[in-house]
């Protein structure tokens, strides 16, 4: 089983230096491209590979790139979204801390494909080790002639900067990220115009997730057919999957897309802790729908998880066990979303705290019969199409699916006027 993204991660988790990275084929893809691949041929190759964005939305990377106007206007921007802040998600951290040059090479190649001349790593503030690793790696890449003017004698110029954020979940949304990078409040922008046309400082901009970018050097080295063969299903490539919650061995593993949830939990995460049963899981961060026992054999890829009524999202499972209160679980999520709402649009700013308060009162034994209807009202009116961005609809995903699968537990709280788990 191939693990292109993580095979060279050192056991001690120290970052891979430039020399170590070059020894295992690092920057070979960049040399290949600079010797004479056209930007368009890279876009076509990545389109053929069917690589889908690993940040959560799963949009075709090659297609996204193809929307950037093909002209010589400057500047154009390429941004690595390294603002990993989705609760339950800890996959990009591994790549950032352990293989910084893989990200940088992926960024240079992607920047070349869209003919960007400026690039940024938008890094989450909390990732201090990653900041040190990326800072050092950018410096090494400049010294080696992989960044700066006339890269490897090709005539292509690219600058790269590291920007560390100051903490706000909204910064992960790509247009809010652009506002933050411009020194503004991280509120989302209207689309269209899409960032590919008018992004950072009004210039064409591509924002890609860290894991997405790390795939690019491998696709260029080994081709799109190879990338297709990595997975077990129609969605191509590997994915860094994670499991957290009360399993025996929580962790993250690079595995083919299309392994089942059951395999991931039992074979990699060691199964549930003794005495606990699997009740449900969020398959990809906080803003996706629950999957439950009947879904254990669902293949973990974008298409299959969507068919099961959820989203693969970030691919990091959060497990709900039978000894953990599902109402408390959802209350924790909704409180998070209420706190992190940017406040820019009214339904999200007012609706999420309302939802959070209702859930708190149910959890504390003060729930009323009509609360279930109120919660269901919110899942519709904070759902897709009623708010400015995807934050509130994302917040409603675990709530509406929890009501669907765990309604009895909600009702028991209300009837007994207490949390049965306490």
């Amino acid at each position: 089983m191939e693990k292109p993204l993580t095979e060279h991660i050192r056991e001690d988790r120290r970052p891979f230096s430039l020399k170590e990275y070059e020894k295992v084929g690092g920057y070979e893809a960049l040399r290949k491209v600079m010797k004479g691949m056209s930007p368009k041929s890279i876009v076509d190759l990545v389109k053929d590979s069917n690589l889908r964005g690993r940040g959560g939305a799963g949009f075709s990377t090659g297609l996204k790139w193809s929307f950037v106007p093909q002209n010589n206007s400057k500047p154009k921007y390429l941004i690595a979204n390294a603002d990993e802040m989705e609760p339950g998600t800890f996959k990009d951290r591994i790549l950032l801390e352990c293989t910084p040059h893989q990200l940088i090479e992926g960024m240079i190649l992607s920047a070349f494909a869209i003919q960007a001349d400026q690039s940024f790593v938008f890094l989450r503030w909390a990732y201090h080790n990653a900041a040190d690793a990326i800072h050092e790696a950018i410096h090494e890449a400049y010294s080696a002639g992989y960044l700066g003017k006339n890269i490897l004698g090709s005539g292509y110029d690219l600058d790269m900067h590291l920007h560390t954020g100051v903490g706000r979940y909204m910064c992960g949304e790509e247009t809010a990220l652009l506002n933050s990078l411009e020194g503004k409040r991280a509120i989302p922008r209207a689309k269209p115009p899409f960032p590919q046309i008018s992004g950072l400082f009004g210039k064409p901009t591509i924002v890609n997730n860290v894991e997405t970018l790390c795939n690019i050097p491998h696709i260029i080295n080994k081709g799109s057919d190879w990338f297709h063969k990595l997975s077990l299903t129609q969605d191509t490539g590997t994915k860094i999957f994670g499991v957290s919650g009360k399993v025996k061995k929580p962790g993250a593993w690079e595995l083919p897309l299309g392994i089942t949830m059951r395999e991931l939990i039992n074979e990699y995460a060691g199964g549930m802790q003794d005495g606990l049963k699997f009740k449900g899981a969020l398959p990809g961060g906080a803003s996706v729908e629950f999957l439950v026992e009947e879904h254990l054999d669902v293949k973990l890829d974008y298409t299959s998880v969507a068919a099961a009524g959820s989203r693969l999202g970030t691919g990091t499972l959060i497990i709900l066990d039978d000894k953990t209160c599902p109402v408390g679980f959802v209350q924790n999520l909704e409180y998070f979303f209420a706190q992190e709402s940017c406040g820019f649009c009214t339904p999200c700013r007012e609706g999420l705290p309302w939802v959070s308060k209702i859930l708190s009162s149910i959890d504390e034994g003060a729930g009323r019969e009509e609360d279930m209807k109120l919660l269901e009202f919110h899942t519709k009116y904070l759902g897709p199409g009623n708010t400015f961005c995807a934050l509130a609809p994302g917040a409603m995903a675990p709530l509406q699916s929890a009501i669907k699968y765990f309604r009895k537990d909600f009702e028991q709280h209300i009837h007994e006027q207490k949390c049965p788990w306490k």
Partner: protein
Amino acid sequence: MLTTDEKNEIEKAISIVPIRKSACIEALKVVQHHRRWISDESLKDVAAYMEMSPEELDSVATFYNLLFRRPVGRHIILVCDSISCWVMGYEKIRDHLTQKLGIRFGETTPDDRFTLLPNCCLGTCDTAPALMIDKDLYKNVTIEQLDEILQKYS
């Protein structure tokens, strides 16, 4: 007044963006790094330097969780309260800290040693519960370890 060091660091940030005030978050970070927090006076100085109104800059400063517009202690304790840590028992960690330090979330100990803050997912969910003190991340935290951890910070 901004110091020469602060100005030099802010200038570096300004040099990579096409519009001066786009570096304002970096400028606030610089000032917070040197002064622990951003007072009204610091905010006015930064605004003048960035050619912004204090109101415009404050709208940015008050938006971000980790720009401090109130005084903080010498060490910042960030306790992850997101879902994986909640499942793994973050509440016990929180309760122990509030009891031990005698402060609630958002408060600073009278000796100025610690400020205690809740924090969103620290991205280390496989080793929950987690907390961070200054730049140090602590994983799989137990109540038994907490006292020992706190002793490292004076």
